[in-house]
């Protein structure tokens, strides 16, 4: 593999949920093309190592536990893991949905997550339906103080916006790309007019075109069980997976004009520009 750019290298990546990493269940996995092993020690501490090509224990990796996930890095991150204060709000449920293995680049995954115009075609009668296909103008801002990309004032008619939705609603969305490989969606909470539900995707890039997507919901929901919420989100992700694994190239093209774009793709256009400026070469063309 070619040398990995420093932006990609110096990120924190989720490698397992905290609950799934137990002393009896280590996780042998890969990150950015390297073999790693995550182990929960008997004293409760989460640890991780690189594993050499001969299968020997290599360099110890930094490990953090945050938002019910185990994070590590192969580089030297400038800062901490992005902030998500909603995690600490009273009454919210953090639902760790599991891992979806998808054969594509992390960039294609993030971009699909930011895209509303596929809802009527890929998530038919759930997140969208014909003839309500038009994507109204929305705003995309690069928040330079935190180096995050936000898309706001997004609205879309959804027949079944969340597991707890019983009828179609006009939902308000905000997208937050907290780093090149982590994105959170804030959407109208069907139960509470004053709050937004969160859905997050944290792709763990196994290599340039293979990812384990860790995904979660952080919601106010008194109706559905965790299992029902997970099934809903899993269903959405499985529909996306059919698309994601059949895009060519699997890498995200960053050159201007490589793919045709329209105004509804504003978030995608800005995302590509943003990670290109940061020098993200991993999983891109």
């Amino acid at each position, binding site marked *: 593999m070619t040398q990995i750019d420093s932006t990609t290298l110096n990120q924190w990546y989720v490698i397992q949920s905290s609950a799934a990493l137990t002393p009896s269940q280590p996780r042998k996995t890969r990150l950015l093309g390297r073999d790693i092993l995550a182990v929960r020690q008997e004293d409760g501490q989460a640890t991780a190592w690189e594993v050499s090509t001969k299968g020997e224990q290599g360099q110890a990796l930094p490990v953090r536990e945050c938002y019910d996930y185990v994070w590590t890095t192969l580089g030297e991150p400038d800062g901490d893991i992005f902030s998500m204060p909603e995690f600490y709000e009273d009454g919210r449920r953090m639902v760790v949905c599991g891992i979806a293995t998808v054969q594509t680049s992390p960039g294609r995954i993030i*971009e699909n997550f930011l895209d*509303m*115009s*596929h809802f*009527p*075609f*890929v998530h038919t009668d759930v997140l969208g339906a*014909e003839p309500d*296909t*038009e*994507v109204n103008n929305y705003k995309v801002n690069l928040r330079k103080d935190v180096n995050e990309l936000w898309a706001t004032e997004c609205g879309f008619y959804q027949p079944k916006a969340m597991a707890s939705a019983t009828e179609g609603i006009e939902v308000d969305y905000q997208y937050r790309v907290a780093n090149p490989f982590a994105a959170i969606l804030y959407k109208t909470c069907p139960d509470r007019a004053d709050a937004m539900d969160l859905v997050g995707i944290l792709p763990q890039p196994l290599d340039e075109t293979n990812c384990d997507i860790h995904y979660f919901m952080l919601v106010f929901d008194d109706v559905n069980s965790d299992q029902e919420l997970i099934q809903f989100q899993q269903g959405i992700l499985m529909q996306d997976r*059919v*698309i994601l694994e*059949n*895009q*060519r*190239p699997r890498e995200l*093209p960053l050159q201007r004009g490589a*793919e*045709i*774009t*329209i*105004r*509804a793709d504003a978030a995608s256009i800005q995302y590509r520009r943003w990670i290109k400026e940061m020098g993200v070469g991993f999983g891109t063309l």
Partner: protein
Amino acid sequence: MTSQSNWIPVSGSGDLAAASARAVVLPDHDVVIWRTKTGAVHAWENRCPHRGMRMSFGQVRDEKLVCRYHGWGFDEEGQCQNIPASPNAAAPPTACIKTWSCTEKDNLIWVDVSDESAGEGSAMSGDSDGVSSLMFCKSVYTDGDLDKVLALVGSARFLPLGYDGDGRDLDWSMTDLPDLVGDAIQILVSGAGSDQIVITGHQARDGRCGLHIMTPSTGDHDLDRQRRLHYSKWAKRLRWSLSNPDAAQDGFSVFS
């Protein structure tokens, strides 16, 4: 056995239903072949210019091939005509898909992906000399280069319909069919049961190739149906035999 023509037989006509699309993998091209509701066939690059989705996952609506991802609809010339996310704006002229010449002959779908192929069907010359109205029976895919596989197939046992021997008492001869465009062989079986099989095919990728098994029509509808079924079964047996060369002593292998 190399043909001078750029036409490649990629599918049996009957394997592409009306208003449907299918992927075809050629050595250097990902192709989508699709058929309109009224029966016309088209061959395009299998990629939506918007976000790279394979068009073979799309559906045919109003004689347009509609991308599975965002519903962009492309007309028969490969030009995008509607973008549902932006229903009131005209699609940009750059939103088009590369098209290749595509035609049907002898119940096969033929594609020309050469640079000279400009979408306007370059005329398909050649006459299936001595082979009248071929019926398509079945396509099978197997490992190996097309030339080598076709040569190998020439040594297989052919078991005509209604013949219940083991094939060892039959004589057969294999000839190239230079006049049938593409790389094709004709197998004439004589002896206890006489019949004729025509096999053509195309190189795929990663050392694989596709074979199309055909046989001439007799004009008798019921008999033709039986013969198609018979040679479809034989084709499956051929595929098994090609992928299990070590089982050549097995009576099921057409090479035993």
